[in-house]
């Protein structure tokens, strides 16, 4: 996918490389990188910084080599597996959370034709799949923290730009927007937030606790 225009920023890549990103954000990052070689190479560079930090750390304590060799004799704890791209719309990182591809998603209606499926992660942030019918809008909202929205299928436009397959929108506290799915194909996104959204409409504000947005 060479047409990706909107990428991960340095802060997210460094945090993911360091291993301190909330799991929900990590899933969006891993999914984007599965679709984007540019960010994969940038991640490699940020991991190299981690390697340099490890090289540089002051050491005082030894580790037991004999015990480690005994551990090796026992064989790997879990089978060594490598995530290779599975066929389907979703990269395998995402398929692991869904329990399959698009046809395995358990959608729930959230109103105005939009459907969502919340994926299980640690509680410091949340991530969901969104299905926005072609031509429909997600209600306008602001953000209390950071919101990452990755397009998997179709495209949406908001006040800032157009986002197509593989594109990632990073929205922060200052941004208020109304994403609208383009005509044609329904839009499917993976969206993560580390704080609840701020809806402007009264109806959505009342519904919010029930929808867990």
């Amino acid at each position, binding site marked *: 996918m060479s047409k990706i225009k909107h990428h991960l920023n*340095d*802060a997210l890549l*460094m*945090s993911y*490389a*360091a*291993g*301190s*990103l909330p*799991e929900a*954000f*990590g*899933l969006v*990052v*891993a*999914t984007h*990188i599965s679709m984007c*070689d*540019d960010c*994969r*190479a*940038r991640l*490699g*560079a*940020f*991991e*190299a*910084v*981690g*390697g*340099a*930090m*490890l*090289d*540089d*750390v002051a*050491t*005082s*304590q*030894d*580790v*037991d*080599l004999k*015990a*480690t*060799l005994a*551990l090796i004799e026992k*064989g*790997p*704890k879990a089978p*060594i597996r*490598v*995530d*290779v*791209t599975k066929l389907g719309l979703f*990269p*395998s*990182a*995402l398929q692991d959370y869904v329990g399959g591809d698009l046809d395995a998603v358990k959608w729930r209606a959230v109103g105005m034709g939009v459907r969502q499926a919340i994926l299980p992660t*640690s509680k410091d942030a949340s991530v969901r799949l969104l299905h926005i019918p072609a031509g429909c809008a997600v209600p306008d909202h602001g953000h209390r923290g950071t919101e990452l929205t990755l397009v998997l299928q179709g495209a949406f436009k908001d006040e800032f730009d157009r986002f197509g397959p593989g594109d990632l929108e990073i929205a922060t506290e200052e941004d208020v927007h109304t994403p609208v799915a383009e005509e044609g194909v329904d839009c499917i996104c993976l969206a993560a937030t580390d704080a609840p959204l701020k809806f402007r409409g009264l109806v959505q504000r009342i519904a919010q606790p029930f929808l867990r947005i």
Partner: protein
Amino acid sequence: STKEQEDLRLVECVLLIRDAQDKAAFAEVFRRFAPRVKAYLIKSGSDASMAEECAQDVMATLWHKAHLFDPTRASVSTWVFTIARNRRIDMIRKQRRPEPDELTWGPEPEPNAADVMELQQESNRLVQALSELPDKQRDLIQKAYFGDLTHSEIADETGLPLGTIKSRIRLALEKLRHAMK
């Protein structure tokens, strides 16, 4: 430089572990990294006994995953760092770590020696450049990598000199893609 020779020797050791289950080569890699992994885990908030257990586990994982190491895409330090980081997320943060799909079924069995050399050299230049950063910036990067900064505390413009190493990794990725066709 001697650092470069050391790094290339470490690559050789990992390949010896992969191809010959060479315990002497493993002991070399172990002496270099096991104490560093343990120190990294302690700095990241683990107590000494858990750090010992995890460090042993990380080094055993290195043995079992030696066939997945790609010296055209990472130095041994970088690779060990990623294994240690994943163990830390697993053991200390008790979270899953979503990983990007691999590009192929693994690295090429016989990586091109010149590519390996260049990647190791670039890694070395990065280490050099990092050591020349102002103390304040260096401390901040260390904090980030030991898990003390959140993504919103990390500035968007990190100012890290990542240019050449990024293009080396990009080149290695393109070669892998090409090899797959």
